């Protein structure tokens, strides 16, 4: 079914930013010789590494203990010998590594999960160190241990970012893993209803999911949504699929919803049904590389190595983006594949090589494109002016704190102003100021 309710603003990307580069590329599995596993895999601070140089570790063995409630544990993604340990990473020489198999039992049929209890599933999620694999990296067990009553589970298969197709291929190739994982998550959340939310630009995925779900009677449904970026944003997805807004400062759980990415659902199935913790993920390597592809790799794989496997970077004048082109982070300019030192983490959805273009900021012509595009309803250009003048009070009254950094405002700006950069800067500055005020308020009492 296609829901009509549409969130505000957003952008309808047309040509030039499409996913065709990797749309028909099946997932390739790849195991490198050495993995470098970061101790910081997601939102919280880095974990404590509990192995030392020279240790032999088994794949799935705990190597990083979480010391903060917003951190998730880290496991060895391969079997091998520890080469180097620092505060921030652990380097392992690979002896052996088995990645989730397409022919595994839980990826070929529906598994009876009735004997798992809610708490059992959540405990396993915590043990597996599963974080939100859509990019946010929020520890999944924290999300599912909410005290609010959950009515709806939304599996986020939207993948609204241009270029990325890894989630799409997870659906196509790991369909049953995803559905088994979704059913486990539904049980873990206590939701009455689960939707697998997907945009209508992926009709083959919708068909596939509908086919797989045809004999499942567990209140789980495919929800086809009209394509629009940033539909994959939690707040936008909740509005588009449920028609409710998450009040400012509240969590999705406060409106009875939990949102999890498809790769998160797959990771849950891998752990609960396959006993493999969160040690691998699918990443799209695309853009200006010779052979764009989707790779399923152990966490810690050097991304430069993957780019080299894709035929390397084609032009010298480039910028390399980790994540999607709209929200990702630039990790290098004018680099070759050997110079890309970053490693695959649990949240890396893609590596995109783009043309190394500089944008010249010109004067705002007050065309309002940013105001129309903002999915939150902010006025980015006014916030931009306010923060450039260091007027935090004005930023606050313009609700800069609500910015989700989706990038729509900068994308549409014909004056090529760095609206997202400044609005995020304003958001963070106002939030810091509010925290400071709250703290000084406490002290005076």
């Amino acid at each position: 079914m296609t829901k009509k309710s549409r969130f505000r603003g957003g952008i309808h990307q047309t040509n030039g930013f499409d996913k065709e580069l990797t749309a028909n590329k099946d997932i390739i599995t790849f195991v490198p010789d050495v993995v470098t596993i970061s101790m910081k895999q997601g939102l919280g601070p880095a974990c404590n590494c509990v192995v030392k140089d020279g240790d032999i570790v088994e794949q799935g063995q705990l190597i990083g203990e979480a010391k903060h409630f917003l951190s998730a544990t880290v496991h060895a993604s391969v079997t091998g010998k520890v080469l180097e340990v620092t505060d921030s990473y652990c380097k392992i020489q690979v002896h052996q590594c088995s990645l989730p198999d397409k022919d595994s039992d839980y990826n070929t049929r529906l598994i009876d999960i009735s004997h798992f209890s809610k708490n059992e599933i959540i405990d396993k999620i915590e043990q597996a160190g599963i974080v939100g694999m859509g990019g946010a990296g929020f520890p999944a067990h924290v999300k599912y241990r909410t005290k609010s009553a959950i009515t709806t589970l939304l599996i986020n298969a939207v993948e609204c970012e241009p270029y990325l197709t890894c989630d799409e291929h997870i659906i196509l190739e790991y369909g049953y893993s995803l559905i088994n994982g979704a059913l486990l998550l539904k049980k873990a959340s206590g939701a009455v209803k689960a939707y697998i939310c997907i945009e209508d630009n992926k009709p083959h995925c919708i068909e596939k999911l509908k086919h797989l779900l045809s004999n499942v009677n567990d209140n789980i449904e495919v929800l086809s949504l009209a394509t629009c970026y940033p539909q994959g944003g939690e707040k936008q997805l909740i509005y588009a699929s449920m028609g409710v807004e998450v009040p400012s400062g509240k969590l999705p759980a406060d409106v009875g919803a939990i949102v999890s990415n498809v790769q998160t659902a797959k990771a849950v199935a891998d752990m609960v049904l396959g006993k493999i913790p969160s040690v691998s993920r699918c990443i799209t390597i695309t853009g200006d590389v010779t052979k764009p592809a989707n790779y399923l790799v152990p966490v810690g794989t050097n991304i430069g190595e993957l780019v080299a496997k894709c035929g390397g970077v084609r032009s010298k004048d480039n910028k390399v983006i980790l994540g999607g082109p709209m929200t990702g982070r630039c990790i290098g300019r004018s680099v070759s594949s050997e110079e890309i030192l970053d490693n695959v983490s649990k949240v890396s959805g893609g590596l995109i090589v783009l043309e190394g273009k500089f944008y010249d900021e010109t004067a705002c012509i007050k065309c309002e494109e940013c105001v129309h595009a903002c999915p939150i309803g902010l006025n980015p250009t006014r916030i931009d002016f306010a923060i450039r003048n260091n007027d935090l009070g004005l930023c606050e009254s313009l609700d800069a704190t609500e910015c989700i950094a989706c990038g729509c405002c900068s994308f549409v700006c014909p004056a090529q102003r760095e609206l997202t950069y400044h609005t995020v800067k304003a958001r963070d500055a106002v939030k810091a100021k509010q925290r400071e005020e709250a703290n000084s308020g406490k002290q005076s009492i």
Partner: protein
Amino acid sequence: MENNLSNPHIRTPKTTRTIMMDVCIALLPALVGSIVFFGLRALLVVVVSVVTCVAGEAIWQICHKQKLTINDFSAVVTGMLLAYNLSSETSLWAVILAGLFSMIVVKQMFGGIGNNVFNPALLGRLFLMVVYPMELMKYKVPSGVDAVSTATILSAVKHKTECSYTVLDAFFGKVPGALGETSALLLLLGFAYLIWKKEVNVSVSAAFFATIVVLSLITEQNPMMQLFAGGTILGGCFMLTDYNLSGKHGKWLYGILAGIIVMAIRQWGVYPEGVCFGILIVNCLSVLIDNIFANKVYGK
């Protein structure tokens, strides 16, 4: 530059320059029309006006050691619009004077593109209207006798004198008037191009035109004549919709207010034509209208 490493890493191909170039393209049919109606003298007025505006902007920016922005085509748009507001018989020195006033006083003194309160072309015309009113009254009858100082349709309507022009004449442009006030058809053609390119907000123009039609029906005038004669189409399509001037929200209110003022001036004012004043007055109100209609913020 740290800014340039910030997300998003892809941008729309549409820039200020491409938008302004599209506006120029949209104004071309009317330019061709004015040459057909008034001869090469019309082209001369447009060229002088455009050159003056671009040079005016360049001189200001060079004197103030600012970055030259003449290649963004906004000065060209102002130059064309100013010329479209003048008649083909306007003295060239007057065109130059108005162009410099538009660019330097109205645009650059307020901070350049995006910061001007008023539409530069319209205020340039108003300047001539106040300082050298005779320059604006030398109208030529299209493709025919070299008559100077003939009455426009709207002044005929206003003074209830005999008017030899029909609505169709006004629509196709065989009427005396300023360069861009003659052919509604050619202007609408250009406007359609802008709509197709999604570079114009239609609601403000729609509200403006609808208000004029409704008010002319109420005051028992020919609504089609009110729409197609004078500067209604030029103003409603190309000047009321000017980006930096129409408010961010409440487009409808903006258009309706402009329409009311235009009709009030035509009905009760001393001037036969009120588009210029109507648009300039709502320009002043845009900030107010902005503040009345604020967006709802998600989750608030």
